[in-house]
């Protein structure tokens, strides 16, 4: 086909243009990263012990549970949803691990506990995707319901875990890195690949960006939204594994209010509550920012009550700055 009238000066996408856009995106992400680096530099001046390897490993271990939860939460928030029930689902998995380990091997107890967590996530997903219940309400209901299950299962008393092999998951080290941190990193890597490189992951973003347009494009919106809550539930189960192992006891109050910490990590990491924008890498950085802040406040002996103020302010300021920078 010969074009007799192709418009003048069509600035087509040159590969250089692509590269500069990628750079720009990188800069946006490094904005959060820069904040983390700055925090680390300031912290290292505030306290000598901060930059020591044991302390940094300590931070990594401490953020693991919330960090893992936040990865699952990222999926949900990217679809413009929210999952308030992850703390309670974690609680259910913790008491199940403890209960099952009384009679079963780890090879049975671990998969069953995680499957149960996924099943609760499935209920969330079906409620949101097919019954049309708003995510906030559906998962608020599950927050209470799952916590109730945990209490009923234990009769209100914690179940001790006596299987010593199980302790290693939450307390051991591999190649000098705490096991919970390795579990967090594995969760991050798998999630990162799924979000960036699978049709499902791509659709998670598109659903959050415009659900109707996604549906018209043939994206199985209902199915994928359901899966997102199953992932969040399953990931809460994995976090529960670390929790149960670290405490070596199945307490029905495990993970209370953790959902809020997970949401905080996600939003500090730059994922938009309005959906369609964000990444698990950002969430990881957000998790670290919150973790490092808590650590340096501890090291410098700031009153725990005052620490709460810092955390609260951090969340609001972070989101404020991001809202500003994305408008510019």
């Amino acid at each position, binding site marked *: 086909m010969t074009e007799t*009238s192709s418009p003048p000066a069509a600035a087509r996408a040159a590969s250089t*243009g692509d590269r500069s856009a990628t750079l720009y995106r990188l800069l946006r992400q490094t904005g959060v990263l820069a904040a983390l680096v700055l925090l680390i530099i300031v912290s290292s001046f505030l306290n000598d012990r901060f930059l020591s390897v044991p302390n940094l490993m300590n931070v990594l271990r401490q953020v693991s549970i919330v960090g893992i939860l936040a990865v699952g939460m990222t999926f949900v928030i990217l679809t413009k949803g929210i999952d308030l029930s992850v703390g309670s689902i974690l609680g259910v998995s913790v008491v199940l691990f403890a209960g099952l380990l009384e009679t079963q091997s780890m090879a049975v107890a671990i998969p069953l506990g995680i499957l149960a967590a996924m099943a609760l996530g499935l209920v969330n997903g079906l409620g949101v995707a097919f019954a049309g219940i708003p995510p906030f309400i559906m998962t608020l209901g599950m927050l209470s319901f799952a916590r109730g299950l945990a209490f009923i299962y234990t009769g209100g008393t914690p179940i001790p875990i006596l299987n010593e092999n199980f302790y290693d998951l939450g307390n051991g080290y591999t190649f000098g890195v705490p096991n919970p941190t390795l579990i967090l990193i594995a969760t991050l890597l798998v999630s990162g690949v799924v979000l960036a490189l699978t*049709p499902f992951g*791509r659709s998670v973003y598109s659903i959050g960006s415009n659900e*109707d*347009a996604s549906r*018209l*494009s043939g994206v199985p919106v209902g199915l994928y939204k359901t899966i997102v809550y199953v992932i969040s539930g399953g990931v809460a189960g994995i976090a529960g594994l670390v929790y149960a192992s670290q405490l070596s006891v199945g307490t029905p109050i495990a993970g209370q209010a953790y959902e809020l910490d997970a949401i905080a990590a996600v939003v500090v990491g730059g994922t*938009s509550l309005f959906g369609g924008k964000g990444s698990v890498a950002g969430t990881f950085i957000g998790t670290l920012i919150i973790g490092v802040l808590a650590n340096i406040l501890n090291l410098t002996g700031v009153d725990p009550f005052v620490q709460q103020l810092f955390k609260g302010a951090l969340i609001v300021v972070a989101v404020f700055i991001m809202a500003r920078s994305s408008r510019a």
Partner: protein
Amino acid sequence: MTDELLQAQALRKQFGNNVVLRDVDLSVGRGEVHAIVGENGAGKSTLIKILGGVHRADGGTMKLEGRELILNSPQAALDQGIVVIHQELSLAPDLTTEENIFLGHFPRNALGLLDRRRMRERTRELLDRLSIEIDPTVPVGQLSIAQQQMIEIAKAISVEAKMLVLDEPTAVLDANRVDTLFDLVERLKAQGIGIVFISHHLEEIFRIADRVTVLRDGERTGTSDVSAIDQDWLVSKMIGREFEAHHTQARGMGEVALELEELSSEGAFENVSFSVRAGEIVGLAGLIGAGRTEVAQAIFGVRPHSSGQMKVFGRPTRFSGPGAAKRQGIAYVSEDRKAFGLLPNRPVRENATISNLARFRSLGLLRLDRERAFVREQIEQLDIRLPSMQAEISTLSGGNQQKVLLGRALAGRPRVLIFDEPTRGVDIGAKREIYRFIEELAEDGVAIIVISSEMEEVLRLSDRVLVMRGGRVAAELPRGEATEESVMRAASLD
């Protein structure tokens, strides 16, 4: 010459190194309608944003009634009596007409409480003055788009607007409503209000405007009294060359690709029968509300049909949803880009391929290199102008957004394509490209249905025109018989 209301001189605006407005002059007189035309990206939106106080000009001066005008914010523009009416209306749908009109400056009684009686009286007065017939006590969400637009204009008048900027007000209206809007504009003129009117429909310029300014690539290429010029002048100023006439060649047509037999959907349309052959373009004309979009939705599987049959390449089919329709080779480009098309905060690349990611998948993972190659090809073929395929689609002009969505429809290699208002809110240059593109698809053997409220578009593209009225097919006109008159008659007369 009318007496001057607004005088802008040498307005200049740049974003980074990109100069989007270069020394543009504009003057608007009292009671004058000054139209601004130009292709997408010509600088119209920037100019409007400067007038509305959203952007500050980097250079140039503005005077309102002879006094220096400095607009630091949209509020400042409002305070000066300059009101911009955007295509996307900004009414609160759950509030009534009167509440919307007085939102922000509710009349109060002696106790400081809302004075509902006075609000109603003043609303009635205002609506009477503008001859708008609307029940002021109904929530505006229940009114038509056309009515809502009028309320927005009435609202502007209620705050003593001196100048109104109407940004493509007719894009969302069908022919009858356009008439009503223009009547209203005439009345506003008579009251001495200056009007800046943006439209992609050139014939509207000749109907309503006194003067016209043409922008191209951020520069003013011409200003003239409308009485002194013709369409060709406008088009040549807009695109910088002469407009070539369109020639249609007959296309070869293949087998019947899609056939509807007595298809009905409760409350939307009844007994609709027609067929489309491979390589044929069938136009679906009619007024807004005639049931055209609903038929498309039923074909595509997003609206249930209660009776009748549909055949795709001879096989009786019933789609459970868009996914199923897509697998059978049917694609649909929605009339409402914003609501049903764009993934606003995602890059162009992802917008273009979301409809068929499976095409780029290997071993469960997306091959981004293949995806990029496909998108690059689409950009080339559709001549999409954009900084990068990583740019968020919302940063593109309307015409380029639409082209990306056409690319999306093509990603599924469709055999039947339904275009619903394919050039809405698209400039004349992009429009011609989209037409040619649709024709090329037909030449490649794709069966095409074009739903359009624009007469010229239907007549230009269609091998056959189906006119719908009140949910039924009122007429079927082959190319030779389809004229503006015959289509209009079938669409609006009983």
